[in-house]
Structures are given as C-alpha cells and as structure tokens.
C-alpha cells in the first residue's frame, strides 16, 4: 500500500461520511456545509489523480458558486428546520428502484471492465492538453451543453420578467 492509496482511502471516507451527513441533517445550512466538504474531498481526489484543473474547477464552480447560491437562498427565505417525518411509501419506491439499478450497473461496469487489473501509470495533465483534448474530440457535446445553459438562462430571464410586469400592472 503506497502513500497515495492511503490518501485515497482517507479522502474516500471523508467524501462518504460528509455526503451521508449532508443528506441526513435537518438543519439546511449544516447540510450545505457538509456537501461543501464532500465537494472539497472530490476536488482533492481529482488532484490526487493528477488532474489539478478539474480539482480547481470543482472548487470554483461547485463549492464556490453553486453552494453559495444554495446558502444564499436558504438565508434569504429563512426555512424552518423541517419536522421529523417519514417520507411516504410512494416516494421511497422509485428512489429504491433507481438506487438498486445504479448499484447493479456500477457492479457490472467494475466487474466487466477490460484491463481492470492493470494499474494506471501515474500522470499529470497540463491544462493546455486537457483543453485541446476536450475541444478537439468532444466539441459537439460542449456545444450542446452550452446551448442547454443558454436555454436555462433565457428561461430564468423570462420567468423573472413576467413576474415584474405583473407587479407593475397590479400597482395602479
């Protein structure tokens, strides 16, 4: 067991525990903080695997932007901590089915992957090479994703504007 695998297992434990805590806490702000810890763990994992660019992007986008927005909304609307209750059965069923399916696919992938016994060589990607790989081979997917984001942006703008116009009409 090398030092890298020891670090890997420590990080994996950190991610699992903090994600588990994030989905079980009743206090929403605490849940968000645990989720941030989980993202932090995944960022360190990316760094360990020799992908510093992905690690930094994970922190900037997920921990630094999206989670701040979550926190912002929670602080703005002041959600009371929800009371203890069991989720109704009809919500449990789909969650369980999808979870099991995911588990089965994961197990299948791990057991059937070719070359699963050959350890990968240690490598470090440079951001330039990563960018070239991404934009030369996967440009179509990037365009599709950015179109999706554009649609979401326009949708949000439309919803926001409609509300404002209604408010103006109500006033007089």
């Amino acid at each position, binding site marked *: 067991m090398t030092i890298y695998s020891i670090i890997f297992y420590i990080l994996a434990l950190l991610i699992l525990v903090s994600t588990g805590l994030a989905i079980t806490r009743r206090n929403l*702000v*605490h849940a968000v*903080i645990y989720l*941030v810890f989980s993202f932090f763990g995944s960022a360190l994992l990316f760094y360990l695997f020799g992908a*510093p*660019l992905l*690690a*930094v*992007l994970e*922190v*900037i986008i997920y*921990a*630094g*932007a999206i989670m*701040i*927005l979550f*926190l*912002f909304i929670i*602080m*703005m609307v002041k959600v009371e901590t929800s009371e203890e209750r069991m989720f109704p059965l009809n919500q449990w069923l789909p969650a369980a089915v999808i979870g099991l399916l995911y588990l089965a696919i994961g197990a299948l992938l791990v057991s059937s992957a070719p070359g699963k016994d050959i350890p990968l060589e240690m490598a470090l990607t*440079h*951001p*330039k090479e990563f960018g070239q790989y991404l934009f030369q081979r996967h440009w179509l997917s990037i365009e599709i994703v950015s179109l999706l984001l554009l649609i979401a942006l326009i949708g949000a703008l439309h919803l926001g504007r409609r509300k404002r116009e209604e408010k103006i009409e109500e006033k007089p």
Partner: protein
Amino acid sequence: MDWIIGIIVLIVKLGLVLVGLLLLAAYLVWVERKFLARLQIRYGPNRAGKFGLLQPIADALKLMVKEDTVPEAADRILFLLAPAVVATSALLMFAVVPFGSHLTLWGKKIPLVITDLNVGLLYVFALSSLGVYGVALGGWASNSKYSLLGGIRGAAQMISYELALGLSLVPIVMHAGSFSIVDIVNAQAKYPFILLQPFAFVIFIVSAMAESKRIPFDLPEAENELGAGYHTEYSGMRFGLFFLGEYVHMQVLGAFVAVFFLGGWRGPLLPAPVWLFIKIILVALIMIWIRGTLPRLRYDQLMAVGWKVLIPAALLNIMVTGAILLI
C-alpha cells in the same frame, strides 16, 4: 536526504511568508489609520511609541486578551469557525505568488515561490470563492438580523464580482498562454501587461476592491445601517481574524495587481522581493486614498455596476483580445 532538505526549505519559506504577511498586515492598519487621518486633516494614532508606531502591537495585544463572547442564540460551531475561514483563505492565496526567480544556496536552486501550480491563477479564484463562506456563515451563525443582512449582502456581492474578476483575467492568460503565475510573470519580461491590457486592469482593480469589501463597496459591513454587518456579534481575536483577513486581502490584491499587470517582482536595480513589496504598498496606498475619497455605493448601483458594466466590458475585452491575437 534530499527530501528532508526539501521539507526544511519549504517550512522555512512558509514561515518567512507567514511572518512577513502578518507583520505587514499589522502595519498596513497603522498606515491606513495614519494616511486616512492625514486625508481628513487629523493626526491619527500618535500615542503608542514614536509616530504611534507601536499602535498595531497594542491593538493586537488588546484583541488577544479581550473576552471571546458567543451569543446565546448563535450556531456555536459555525460561529466559531467562520472567522478562521476568512483569514485562512486569504493567507493561503500567497502560496502561488512568486517573490523572485530563484536563489542559489550551496549549489542548489531554490525557487522563490512556495509552489508553482500549473493552475495557479484558478487556485487563487478557488480560495477567493471559499472566502465567501466566512462572511455568509459568520452572518448567519450570529443569529442577529444585522449580521444576517450583512452576510447576505456579502455573499451576493462577492459572487457577482467574482465573475467580472475572472473574466478580466482571461486576456492575461491568453497573452501568457498559461495559468501558472510564474509563467505569467515571465511573460512580462519585456513590458508589463498593464500596457497591453489597460481595460482589463481597470475591470480587475474595481472588481477586486469589491471582492475585498472595502469602501466604496463595503455594503456587507455598512456601519450606519447594519452596525458592523456580518461581524457585529464578534469580539476579541475572532473579530481580529476578520480584520486580519481584510488586511491580508489588501496585500493579496496588491500582489496580484503586481503579478498580473505590473510585471511581478521585475524591476531595475533593487532585489526582486523589494520590488514586489513596493508594488504591494503602492496598490494599498491607492486603495486607502480611494477609501478617503469616495462615498459608499447604493445596493442597486453596486449590482448594476457589476452585472451591466463590468461583466459586458470584460467579455468584450476578451473578444477583442482574441481577435487581435488571431490576426
């Protein structure tokens, strides 16, 4: 044997940078109080030592021996942790700032930077976006309406201006062809980037001042509306940590203005770290001058400047730079 020497060198570098940063932060407070006083035709601190030079030490002692109170209704753990987040994220940013090219000791080259990450610039952004947590959580955990309002304002302001901050530096990365701070400084060997990118410089400095929450962007701690904003409920050294974070942030800002636009440690005659120090102090003095000159923005003006002026200008700047680089 080699790795032991490596670790010793690293620890010495870390210690020097940390001590330097903390000392400079303490004396920046003194400089700010003196200079601001002069701008307002007062004397400023002049009782402790000659010219009030011992004032920062007296302040630090006072903060450390003061009682550290926690409000009864506060979220205890988050309340205690939030100031540390602010101070640590500001201090850690200095890990990628180069203080010179390298030093040769006993035939070994020692680079004058703690670590040269190949994503150094993005690392700085990652840390600056984590600094928001200190402000937002400090405000929320205090369980007071002034603190909460300050925290919400801080979070909104910092995520808005982070976009402009990031976009303003894209042309710099395009010129240097690298995210590494060392490479960016080396790319300015002939001329500093402020000559190539004056617009990026203006956008960067405005949004960086908003990031560090100083006048005219100090809405999260607007004294006459919110008490002291997100740190209203803090006392003793925990308040001191917020304060320290702010002054380290000023140095960070100075260092990054120097690194991205003024050629970093480069300069004639004087040794490299001295040049970096001069540039940091220069930027800090200009920021204090701005603080003494401008009033605070209104909240809607703040958001309008960020979203409707700085971000479009930065995007335009990227497109123009790209076009010029292609031709």
